């Protein structure tokens, strides 16, 4: 086949395999056969081997650190640059030792293709499997297998076929596509650049396979994800800078910003020295100005209206762990995703895969070098995707204090339980319809708008706390308003009774009113029993970015004892039907943003808690 030289193209290849199976020798030989090792380097290696009394070892080309040379192990990944007639290459040499897993993964996350090297004499070893398993997890789907040291097994066809069968079966089981399997001798340079005449192998040599490899990570038809990295204010313009992580961004289209679910359009692209295009594609870092003056933050995602990311604060992930400390359930960690940090907890470990032997375990601790499926809860709403669907917005690293302790990919970000999946466009903040818009109001009052949804049994203390906090924050200059379920029922919701369908409608209307208040720049306190999870989740979906669920907690016994309005007595005697806690259920929130226990704390303490929370979440920073 004939390929045009295209020196512009670069392929990033990671090379993995068990220790001593010949990675360094392969790289050294490849470079030297391509005539690309500087003479001074070869001389350096000769000198180094001589002072150490060794035969010529290519490992010294790559192992740059003194300890690496002295101990004969690769500690950290290194990258080697070279070129063939066809294209440029970056080879990433990853350490084989398991202590240096994090370095191997660091190298692998930037690769497009992998070469797996297997010693023909020793066959498949522990790290052979471990490495490719991790590659598959990291999203590398193409692997070239080379069976090395064929010179030591007399270029034996049967031994090769045996290994071929074994490794093919394994790679297939972990969903990896084999680009080619090649018998080589790195030491002799057989089937690397130069063909070795073998009666039984008529395939390509390694260099041909590399040169002809096409990265299939095509972006055609992928949904748009533009992740906001920062906001610059340059001469009156508010410019959102960020990178197109997937799909295409076009000047003319209508988009939606998540998580606020606001419809937007692009006024101009901001590029230095000037923008010359009407369309930007995956990988491009750009700036843009929107027509709408809306609230946007780092980590927000711009997408097509019908194909937006998942908005959720709970999701399942597959993680890898390389900290010496085991993972702790319910401890606060941070994840870094879409250029931003989010506080999270791991709420559940579903299963653990020990990558040393690939056995699976349930109900166990996640320790160093484990891979695990976990559930993650975040404090704020994340805009993420399943890794399988949109790579770039579905991968993250985990940080504990000052250390990167692991990383992972989003397995399932479906949020059916939490947030309505169909996107809702917030028509209330379209600036072409209104003279004053949300952002202006925010700038004027100096705090952000928000919804504090107080749920809890009748008599738990919702209204009392709300009134207290409203007063306090009003005096501090906040635009704050308290919406009370009982009051609403006397006006707007007068037509509704207490049957489940009416409760749904009651909540819907209340949430819509709250949303209007938010558009007006207010913080709204809502006191509403709202006993059903599904309804509260619907309320959340209307303005997920500012919605905070506050569980006002008190036992039914305590509330009945308080019975401020005499309602429990009436319910007991049957004079009120469908009374929450007595004749109708109350579903406690799973993961409220805040729990205020009014049995354990006095009313002042409780109000203080909420007041602080509001200031932290929405107040001036």
């Amino acid at each position: 086949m004939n390929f045009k030289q295209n020196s512009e193209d670069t392929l990033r290849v990671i090379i993995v395999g068990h220790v001593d199976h010949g990675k360094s020798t392969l790289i050294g030989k490849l470079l030297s056969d391509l005539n690309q090792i500087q003479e001074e380097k070869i001389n350096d290696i000769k000198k180094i081997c001589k002072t150490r009394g060794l035969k010529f070892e290519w490992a010294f080309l790559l192992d740059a650190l003194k300890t690496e040379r002295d101990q004969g192990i690769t500690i950290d990944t290194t990258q080697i640059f070279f070129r063939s007639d066809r294209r440029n290459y970056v080879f990433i040499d990853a350490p084989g030792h398991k202590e240096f897993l994090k370095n191997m993964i660091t190298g692998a996350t930037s690769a497009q293709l992998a070469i797996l090297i297997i010693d023909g004499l020793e066959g498949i070893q522990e790290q052979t499997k471990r490495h490719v398993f991790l590659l598959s997890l990291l999203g590398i789907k193409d692997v070239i297998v080379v069976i090395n040291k064929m010179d030591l097994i007399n270029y034996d066809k049967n031994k090769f076929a045996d290994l071929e069968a074994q490794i093919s079966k394994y790679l297939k089981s972990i969903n990896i596509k084999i680009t080619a399997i090649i018998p080589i001798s790195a030491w002799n340079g057989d089937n690397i650049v130069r063909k070795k005449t073998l009666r039984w192998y008529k395939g390509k040599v390694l260099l041909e396979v590399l040169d002809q490899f096409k990265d299939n990570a095509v972006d055609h038809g992928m949904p748009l994800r533009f992740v906001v990295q920062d906001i610059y204010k340059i001469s009156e313009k508010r410019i959102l800078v960020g990178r197109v992580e997937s799909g295409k961004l076009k000047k003319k289209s209508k988009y939606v910003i998540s998580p606020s679910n606001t419809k937007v359009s692009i006024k101009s692209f901001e590029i230095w020295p000037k923008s010359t295009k009407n369309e930007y594609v995956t990988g491009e870092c750009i700036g843009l100005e929107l027509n709408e003056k809306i609230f946007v933050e780092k980590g927000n995602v711009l997408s097509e209206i019908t194909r937006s990311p998942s908005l959720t604060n709970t999701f399942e992930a597959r993680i890898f762990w390389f900290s010496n400390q085991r993972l702790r359930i319910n401890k606060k960690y941070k994840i870094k995703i879409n250029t931003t940090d989010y506080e999270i907890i791991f709420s559940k470990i579903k299963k653990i895969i020990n990558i040393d032997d690939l056995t699976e375990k349930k109900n166990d601790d996640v320790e160093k070098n484990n891979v695990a499926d976990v559930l993650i809860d975040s404090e704020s709403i994340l805009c993420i995707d399943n890794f399988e669907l949109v790579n770039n917005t579905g991968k993250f690293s985990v940080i504990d204090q000052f250390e990167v302790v692991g990383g992972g990919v989003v397995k399932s970000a479906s949020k059916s339980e939490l947030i309505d999946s169909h996107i809702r466009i917030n028509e209330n903040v379209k600036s072409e319809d209104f003279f004053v818009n949300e952002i202006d109001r925010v700038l004027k009052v100096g705090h952000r708008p928000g919804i504090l949804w107080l749920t809890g049994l009748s008599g738990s203390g919702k209204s009392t706390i709300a009134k207290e906090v409203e007063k306090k924050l009003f005096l501090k200059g906040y635009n704050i308003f308290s919406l009370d379920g009982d009051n609403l029922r006397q006006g707007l919701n007068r037509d509704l009774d207490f049957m489940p369908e009416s409760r749904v409608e009651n909540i819907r209307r209340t949430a819509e009113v709250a949303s209007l208040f938010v558009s007006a720049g207010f913080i709204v306190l809502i006191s509403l029993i709202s006993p059903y999870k599904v309804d509260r989740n619907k309320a959340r979906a209307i303005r997920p970015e500012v919605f905070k669920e506050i569980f006002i907690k008190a036992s039914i016994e305590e509330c009945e004892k308080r019975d401020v309005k005499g309602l429990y007595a009436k319910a007991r005697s049957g004079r009120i039907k469908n009374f929450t806690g007595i004749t109708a259920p109350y579903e406690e929130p799973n993961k409220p943003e805040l729990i205020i226990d009014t049995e354990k704390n006095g009313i002042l303490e409780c109000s203080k808690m909420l007041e602080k929370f509001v200031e932290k979440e929405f107040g001036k920073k």
Partner: protein
Amino acid sequence: MDHLTKLENESIFILRQAYSSIKNIAMLWSLGKDSNVMVWLAFKAFLGKIPFPLVHVDTKKKFKEMYAFRDKYEKLWNLNLILGDCPPISKIDPSLPPAARSAARKTEGLKKILNEKKFKGIIAGIRRDEQNTRAKERFFSPRDETGKWDVKNQPAELWNSFNTEYPSNVHLRIHPLLSWTEIDIWRYIKRENIPIVDLYFAQNGKRYRSLGDKDITKPVESNASTLDEIIKELQNTKTSERSGRLMDKEEENIFEKLRSKGYM
């Protein structure tokens, strides 16, 4: 997307990420070709105005052409330039070989300005292909107050997610050009028409491939007097870029030694 555009975007992403997550940050401007490319990328990242200072740690032993270049472009590019000075050679570890000792002065100069200005991030234009130990660098590389590089325990850097949370005695070295090679730099200089010091172009059969201090940098044999000729020369060369740097040859691990003490 072509190769240079990919590199350009990666660098812009890194620069923006550094600026948005590190408070007190500055960029090293050594006046060489790489750091001019870096300044150019900063113009792209920040849309025409660099929002942090540039630092030139001046050994006072640079070529006069370099000083002239600095003065011209400080004005033309409207840079917020801070000059740092270096201690006299007598204050530097005498056990080092001569050229390395001279290079170590710059490290001390850098540490001094870091301490004075309390920078939490320093953007430096090193590349992986320059030198074996630089090939192991991270994009965001933490150093303690002594500038020590703990190469055996570098942080994981997954995808483009960079950790910027460290204890207060730590500063970060940010390396936006890490993935570039020498020839990429030249092709980009040509594509973008980026100004560089004339010393890179051959005169009387010699040119500088890399610019350091006058006394420890030597020109290489070359007739390449235009950008195209330089690019062509590099396509065929087998000698390394730093071959004109004397310190690299003094000891097997001299570079590692200097770097572990805070050299770039």
